[in-house]
Structures are given as structure tokens and as C-alpha cells.
């Protein structure tokens, strides 16, 4: 156990590895901050560099790119309401309002520290209890994964308590959009109206970019007084990326710890990943927070919940990849390919035959999460300068960046049309009081929820009782019921206490 820790540190503290990890961190933060360049695309873009490296350094480099890209996604989410990666979408809920109030620097500070803490906790979990965590992950079959995704969906009841009906409609609309395309079990076309483009389903990234970024530009277009400049322009773009004080950080300690543990666990589950981790963490924060009404208005807890969880999930996804050979997500799959080409034996034998790789991943995650705070601060300062640009320049550029982000996904202009449509519908949603975040959540979780439920149904020969009485499923579903009923029961409890 502790051998991994020491070997890892020994590997990453050699000058060449240290240099590569720093370079990977810089690349990752920049890629992550670019809308549409997802974590997996960042790893793919960094792959050619890794081919020329020694395998141990290569994995350390790729891990650095992966972890840093998730953190980089939070920068544009806070400054421009464009989530650089899908997992940064919940960061916009509190990060952007803080930036709008002129507290962008503080929001970024919380985001970076939370990301680092989440990443470090996941790294230690990976190094110390990787075999045990893998054993837990193996117990998660379709019914358990359905329960996890349902837990994510229970967020819908708390995203906007002011208008629960409209929030639920928005979430259901997202779930319905996730049904478009080929049915995950039988391969039957649904809601495609004979259109072959729709067969592959509705991509989440263009919809998300449209709903957040394009909608925001349309909103600002209507607001006459903001046209000539952004609020931050008063400082000529000289925004301070202030690290929160120790006292401020201490106030978020429970949120940070909870989000980090949750992110690590969700990251381990195959098919879940950083996006689900951040949404789930934000939802749980909203449920257990002492002041849930403030979440979404721009408070550090919301940023911490999202960023600590999504970064912890990157560490979590390394556990099944290295110890079982199961990639937790797309980025992990790309890394796995690169390592297999390099002759690394990924799987249960890795720890015994090539322990230096596990140690290298651990060491890289440790170093990346420390270096990342410094690098991301620098990148954030450069991005923040953009805030000083007049909105007549910034607004159209945001739309074009969104268009490139949507297009880059499949090199398909159809995705740009989808992004524009989502932006226009998103504006209508805002105007009518519906919830765009709920729609994104439905779209993210829709297929995972449906496919796992149907798989579980088939595996149990059509027995719903068997599905819901499995121990892990039963515990998670009970938690879902408690979470769903808590807002209704809470007033009665408070009355009784009074």
C-alpha cells in the first residue's frame, strides 16, 4: 500500500517526469477551458505526444492532461457560463452568478481549491484501497447502476423548489430527448421520423452548450445597458484570482469532503463518470445544505460541490481502469489504448507485475492537483482579461466558440444547428420559467437509467421484486425515496421541533 505512495512520489519527482506532468497540466487546463474540447478530446489531442514517451512517463502525462482538463472546464463555466466540459455544467449554477456580482476571482479560487482537494482525496483512495474499491465496483450490476442514475434524477425535485412542476417537466423533456435514436436494447429507431441523422440520438454537448452559452448571449442582447461592456470591465480585466482564506475554506470542509468521496465512488462505477458525479453532488448538497434556497444564487458551496466531485471522479475512474482493465469513461478508454500499445498489461495483474504504473498514476495525480492550482490561476487570469472586452465583441465570439465546440464533436454542422436550436429554446425556457439545468440532467442520465433498468429486468426474468430487493439497490432506492420526500416532510419536522 504505502510502497505505491513512495514509488509514485519517486517517479514523479524525477526532472523529466515532473516537466512532462507540468506540461500536461498546462495543456489540460487550456484544453478544458475551451468549450467543446471535452476531457476525452483533450486526452486524444495529447496522445501523439505520449507515443514518443517512456510508458511510465506517458501515463503520468496523460493522467495530468485528464485531471487538469476537468478543472479547466470550470474556468469558462464561471466566467462566461460556457461549461468547458459537461461535468462543469453544475459549476455554472453558482459560479456564474458570483462572477456577475464581480466575485469571479473568488469563485475561481474556490473552484480550483475544491478541484485540487477532490483530486487529492481520489488519488489517495486509489493508491490505498484500489483493490477494495474495485471489488465494490464489481458488485454494481444493471439494477445498482439504475439506482445510482435514479438517485441522480431525484435531483429534479430540488433544482428549483419555487416551481417544481416546471422543473419536473423540463427534466422529463430531457429524458424524452435521450430516447431519440436507436433503442439501447433492441436497436429499434425511436422518434427519428425516418431521419438517419437522428438515429445516433441527440448529442448532449451541443444541447448543453446551446442552453447555457447561446441562451446567455440572447439574454444579454435584450439587456440594453450591458451591451457596451461587461461588469468586470471596470477593473480593465485585471481580475484577481484570490485563493479563499482558510476560514472561508473551512466553512466548506464538509461539502468538500462529501463531494470528494461521492465523486470518487461515482467515478469508479463504469458508465457513470465526472458529469453524473458533479450533478449528483450538487443535488445532494441542495438536499442537505442548511440554506438550500441560496444554492443557485451564487454561493461557494455550489461551486465546491460540483468541482470537488468532478475532479474526484477522474481519480475514481482510474481504479477500474488499472486494476480491472475496465475504462470508466471515454477518456479512460483512450488512455487504456495508449498504454496497451506501449505494452502495459492493464488488469488485475498490473499491481503484481508492473506496480510502477499504478504508482506513476498516483504520483501524477498528486502532483497534477498541486501544480494545477498554480497553472489554472494563470490561465484564469488570461481568460478573465476577455471579460474586459466590450460585449459587442464578446457576445458574438461566445456564440462562435459554442458553434465550434458543437461542431468539433463529430465534425458535423448538424450539431451546430442543434446547438443553435437549443439556445433559442433555452431562452424561451428561461422566459417561461422552465429549468434548462433539469433538461440537461434528464438528457445526461436518460440512457443510463433506461438501459440499466431494462437490462436488470431481463436479467431477473422480468421480476421487479428481484431488482429492487438487491441490497445495494434497496439502500440507494431508499435514499432516493427519502430525498424525494424530504422537502414535503421537512415543514412537519420543523413544526414539531418548534
Amino acid at each position, binding site marked *: 500500500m504505502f510502497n505505491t505512495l513512495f514509488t509514485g512520489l519517486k517517479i514523479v519527482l524525477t526532472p523529466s517526469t515532473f516537466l512532462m506532468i507540468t506540461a500536461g497540466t498546462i495543456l489540460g487546463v487550456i484544453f478544458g477551458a475551451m468549450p467543446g474540447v471535452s476531457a476525452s478530446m483533450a486526452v486524444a489531442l495529447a496522445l501523439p505526444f505520449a507515443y514518443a514517451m517512456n510508458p511510465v512517463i506517458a501515463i503520468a502525462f496523460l493522467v495530468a492532461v485528464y485531471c487538469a482538463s476537468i478543472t479547466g472546464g470550470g474556468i469558462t463555466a464561471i466566467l462566461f457560463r460556457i461549461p468547458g466540459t459537461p461535468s462543469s455544467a453544475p459549476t455554472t449554477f453558482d459560479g456564474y452568478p458570483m462572477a456577475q456580482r464581480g466575485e469571479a476571482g473568488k469563485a475561481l479560487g474556490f473552484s480550483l481549491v475544491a478541484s485540487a482537494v477532490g483530486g487529492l482525496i481520489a488519488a489517495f483512495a486509489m493508491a490505498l484501497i484500489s483493490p477494495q474499491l474495485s471489488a465494490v465496483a464489481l458488485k454494481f450490476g444493471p439494477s445498482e447502476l439504475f439506482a445510482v442514475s435514479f438517485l441522480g434524477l431525484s435531483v429534479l425535485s430540488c433544482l428549483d423548489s419555487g416551481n417544481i412542476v416546471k422543473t419536473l417537466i423540463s427534466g422529463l423533456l430531457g429524458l424524452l430527448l435521450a430516447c431519440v435514436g436507436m*433503442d439501447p436494447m433492441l436497436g429499434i429507431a425511436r422518434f427519428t421520423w425516418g431521419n438517419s441523422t437522428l438515429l445516433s440520438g441527440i448529442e448532449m454537448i451541443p444541447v448543453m452548450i446551446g442552453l447555457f452559452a447561446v441562451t446567455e448571449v440572447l439574454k444579454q*442582447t435584450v439587456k440594453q445597458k450591458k451591451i457596451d461592456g461587461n461588469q468586470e470591465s471596470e477593473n480593465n480585466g485585471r481580475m484577481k484570482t484570490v485563493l479563499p482564506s482558510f476560514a472561508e475554506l473551512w466553512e466548506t470542509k464538509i461539502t468538500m469532503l462529501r463531494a470528494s468521496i461521492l465523486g470518487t465512488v461515482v467515478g469508479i462505477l463504469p458508465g457513470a463518470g465526472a458529469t453524473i458525479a458533479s450533478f449528483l453532488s450538487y443535488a445532494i448538497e441542495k438536499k442537505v445544505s442548511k440554506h438550500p434556497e441560496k444554492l443557485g444564487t451564487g454561493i461557494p458551496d455550489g461551486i465546491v460541490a460540483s468541482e470537488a466531485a468532478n475532479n474526484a471522479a477522474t481519480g475514481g475512474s482510474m481504479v477500474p481502469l488499472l486494476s480491472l482493465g475496465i475504462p470508466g469513461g471515454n477518456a479512460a478508454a483512450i488512455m487504456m489504448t495508449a498504454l496497451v500499445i506501449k505494452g502495459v498489461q492493464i488488469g488485475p495483474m498490473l499491481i503484481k507485475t508492473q506496480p510502477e504504473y499504478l504508482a506513476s498514476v498516483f504520483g501524477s495525480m498528486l502532483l497534477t492537483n498541486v501544480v494545477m492550482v498554480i497553472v489554472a490561476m494563470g490561465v484564469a487570469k488570461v481568460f478573465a482579461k476577455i471579460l474586459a472586452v466590450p460585449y459587442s465583441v464578446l457576445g458574438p465570439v461566445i456564440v462562435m466558440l459554442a458553434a465550434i465546440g458543437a461542431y468539433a464533436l463529430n465534425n458535423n454542422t448538424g450539431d451546430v444547428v442543434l446547438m443553435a436550436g437549443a439556445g433559442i429554446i433555452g431562452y424561451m425556457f428561461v422566459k417561461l420559467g422552465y429549468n434548462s439545468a433539469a433538461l440537461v440532467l434528464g438528457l445526461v442520465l436518460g440512457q443510463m437509467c433506461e438501459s440499466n433498468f431494462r437490462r436488470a429486468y431481463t436479467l431477473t426474468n422480468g421480476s421487479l421484486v428481484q431488482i429492487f430487493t438487491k441490497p445495494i439497490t434497496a439502500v440507494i432506492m431508499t435514499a432516493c425515496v427519502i430525498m424525494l420526500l424530504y422537502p414535503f416532510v421537512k415543514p412537519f419536522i420543523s413544526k414539531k421541533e418548534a
Partner: protein
Amino acid sequence: MDIIFSLILAIFCVYCFFLVGAESPAATSTELGAAFWPRIILVLMIILLVVNIVNSLKAQKESKGSIMDELNLGGFFRSRLFVGIILVAVMALLMSTVGFIPDCLLFLIAYGFLLGEKRIPLLVVRSLAITAILYVIFQGALDIMLARGVGPFREFALFFEMLLPF
């Protein structure tokens, strides 16, 4: 407006409910079928949309308004918002035909003008510079094959691709 939106969405949901049933084979004892999940969602949506319509009608009755009160189509069509929506839609639709470079340049100029920039020469120069920067970063450095367009626009894009040093 909300009532009209909810009503249209509810009608669409009813249509989808029957459509998905007609498209998918029937469920078996061990397979729920392709229509099962969407139908659950659609039923829940229809119920919630009806609740929303009833809530909105109640609220309207209390405020003594009518469905048409919030509708001001004339004002909407003359608004900056409408022009903005059209520009975004046109940019998205034209990208496959004219390619990234002309599409981006024209959109930056048009939207910048809409947002109040009246110094046309400055706007054009700035838009040209931004288009060039975006093109070099994404097409050049990140190797993302941006849309080329068709016909002469494709030739134009290919010419620029040859100029890139990457």
C-alpha cells in the same frame, strides 16, 4: 404564453405516445420493449403539463387576465431578440454551405452591429482578426476540421488550409 406552450407540448406528447407504440414491437415477459420507457415519460409529462395549464389558468383568473395578454407578436418581431435569434439560426444553417470562415466573419459583423457597435470599419477589422485567430487555433493548432462549405466556398477553405503552417 406558458399555457399555449404547455398545450402544444401536451398535444405533441400525446402524438409521440401513439407514435412510439406503433414503431416498436410488443413487450415480452423478460423484455420491456422499446416503447416502455418513453411511454412512462410521456404519461408523466402529459399529467404535469395538464397540472401546469390548470395552475396557469387559475393564476390568470386571479389576476383577471387572458391568454392573449402576454402575446405581443408585433413587438417581438421588431425586437433585438428576434434579430439575434434569426442571426444565430442563419449562422448555424449556413455553416455547411458557406463554410466556417465566411460564416464566422459575417456573423461577427452582423451580431456586433446588433449589439450596438456602429463603427463599421473597426467592426470589420476586429471580426477579420477574430476569425483568423479562431481559425488558426482550431483548424491549425488543434487540428479540428472546420466546415469547408460547398462549391467555391470549399475551394476558398482549401486555399486557406494550404496556407496554415501546421
